[in-house]
């Protein structure tokens, strides 16, 4: 089961180095694999339909990916601890409406304040979910399923039949997703930076490593003195806060926000995270992989659209990819543990 990218405390069994190398390799292969599939997909689509690799289309894909890559970062933190956060789509919707609505009520409000407001709304939701999961001792699936509908319901009550339209938003806000630097959307660069920070945190910080430990074996993590409750709580709070910020970005990207904004996003994000190699059992995976998963998913959907496949197929494709990815992971896991067992047996002899 334990397939963390590298064992935090060196295990003094013979062959551990070897095992670690194999496990490491598998993870490299996963991320390279996604990149390879991505390149293949882009090449094939570009040959069939050259306008797929237009600068404007690539920019579109990148900007659309940023929202999902951010959400995937938060979801990864949660999934690593062997939990799941189904509430992010609703949090995004609520934050998108409330933050964009600020522009209508407070003329000339600084954009930074709106982003902070989105962050705060998300944080409140994440804290509530984390509290109920950790202190209530209820499976996160049930808590976040309930939160998904409660937050969406609050959204409906707040929004009513109304909506925020692009004309009520300041230009500087709407321009955020459109700004580019040498042809690359600035937003994509910023989000890539955030993902890099997340990856560094998970790789090099003690509390980051502890998230892996909790997901690999919750009981062992507790016995090792890891403050499990606090870490899981933090993961949910972070996921909520990130979804809040993603909501503000959603508002800037689409301009029109009603009470259905972001519904169903949680499913696409979970698909992206799992396709990106984060184990649904927790304990293994990386945020870079998750972000690549999000990029792959967006690229596939965009490619199919360009190739003339109706966008009505999108959801079915996301679902099929999710199922394929978890089945593939399971296969790799079984192979890997069999291989490691064989190695260990050889060393013992």
């Amino acid at each position, binding site marked *: 089961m334990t397939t963390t990218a590298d064992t935090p405390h060196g295990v003094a069994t013979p062959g551990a180095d070897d095992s670690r190398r194999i496990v490491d390799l598998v993870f490299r292969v996963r991320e390279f694999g996604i990149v390879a599939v991505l390149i293949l997909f882009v090449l094939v689509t570009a040959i069939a339909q050259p306008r797929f690799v237009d600068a404007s289309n690539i920019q579109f894909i990148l900007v659309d990916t940023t929202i999902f890559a951010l959400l995937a970062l938060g979801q990864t933190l949660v999934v690593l601890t062997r939990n799941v956060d189904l509430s992010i789509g609703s949090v995004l919707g609520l934050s998108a409406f409330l933050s964009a609505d600020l522009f209508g009520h407070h003329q000339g409000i600084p954009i930074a304040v709106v982003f902070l407001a989105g962050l705060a709304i998300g944080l409140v939701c994440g804290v509530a979910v984390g509290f109920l999961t950790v202190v209530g*001792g209820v499976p996160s699936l049930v808590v976040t399923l309930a939160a*998904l509908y409660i937050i969406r319901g609050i959204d*409906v009550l707040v929004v009513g039949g109304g909506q925020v339209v692009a004309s009520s938003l300041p230009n500087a806000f709407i321009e955020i997703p459109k700004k580019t630097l040498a042809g690359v959307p600035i937003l994509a660069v910023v989000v890539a930076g955030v993902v890099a920070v997340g990856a560094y945190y998970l790789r090099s910080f003690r509390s980051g490593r502890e998230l892996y430990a909790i997901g690999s074996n919750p009981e062992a993590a507790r016995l090792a003195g890891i403050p499990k409750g606090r870490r899981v709580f933090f993961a949910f709070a972070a996921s909520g806060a990130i979804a809040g910020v993603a909501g503000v970005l959603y508002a800037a990207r689409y301009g029109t926000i009603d009470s259905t904004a972001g519904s169903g996003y949680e*499913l696409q994000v979970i698909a992206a995270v799992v396709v990106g190699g984060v184990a649904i059992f927790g304990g293994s995976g990386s945020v870079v992989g998750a972000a690549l998963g999000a990029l792959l998913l967006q690229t596939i959907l965009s490619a199919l659209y360009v190739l003339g496949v109706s966008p*009505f197929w999108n*959801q079915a494709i996301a679902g099929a990819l999710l199922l394929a990815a978890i089945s593939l992971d399971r296969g790799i896991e079984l192979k890997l543990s069999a291989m490691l067992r064989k190695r260990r047996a050889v060393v013992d002899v």
Partner: protein
Amino acid sequence: MSELRRRIQGAVRWEVGLLFALVAVVLFGISTSSQFLTSTNFFYLNLSIGEVAIMALPMTLIIVTGEIDLSVASTLGMSSALLGYLYVHGWSIPLAILAVLVVGAAAGALNGFLITKVGLPSLAVTIGTLTLYRGIAVAILGPQTISTFPARYTDIGVTALPHTGGYVSYSVGFFFVLAILFGIVLHVTPFGRSLFVMGANDEAARYAGIRVKRTKFRLFVLSGIVCALAGILYTFRLSTAVQDNGVGLELTVVTVVLLGGVSIFGGRGSIVGVVLAIAVFACLQSALFLTDFEQRAMGVVTGSLLLLSVLIPNASTFVRRGREVLRRRQLRSATAEPAS
């Protein structure tokens, strides 16, 4: 023996609580509107809960074994879409119904295969199939709305069962028959007992010679068929097949099952509890409807009920944990004192 008695008492207490809740909700309904007790309202109440009630039965069995099926509402939606699609492509209704039930069984079999044969957690698999089956519904119907079903069939959806005084809908009639069957299977047969054993301890059940995987596989197939049936009834009730039929109903189904006292961790629960929980939920929904509560915000109520029904049984652990923390603090201060 005392363990058994304690368990029975625990279960009975929960169901007695539900009875009180039912009385309270009915009183609330009467106080909000004079319409509440009329036969028309009662019939609408039947219509609004029928499909959820039917889907809650296999869900109960699945949760008792410690698994979950989040794809129920999507299976319902896919069945509804398929029924519409086949009908407009010239299939006769009975044949289309048969095909839909077969596809429902296949949908359940895919869940069961991935969970028992591939060995994936049911949560992850059914989140995947929730997306996939809804995606298939969207893909086969697209933006179309099909509402040309023959009246002979759509009448099933909107008329009462004969000899019930106009109170009971066909869907609730189906539900009662199925509830009795499921109740007998779960509580009287060895098969039903084996489900509880699985939920309490999977490994122990396997060592006791229970075919855990095969049984779970069959339960998921059963769930697929029953959800397909619910999808057919749903379509006839609204006389409409659209791609988003029944979106989000999985929440309501899981809520009524857990509200019925079935443990989310498996191994505990009863059909009687679930039936009572369905009655409570249906009356609450109907009362809120009569008070002009925003229907699209019903999720707030359902979600809160779901949280309550999992938090209340945990309340004792909750209190115990709090006490433990306090005691540990006292101990620490007691041991710290002599040192200083």
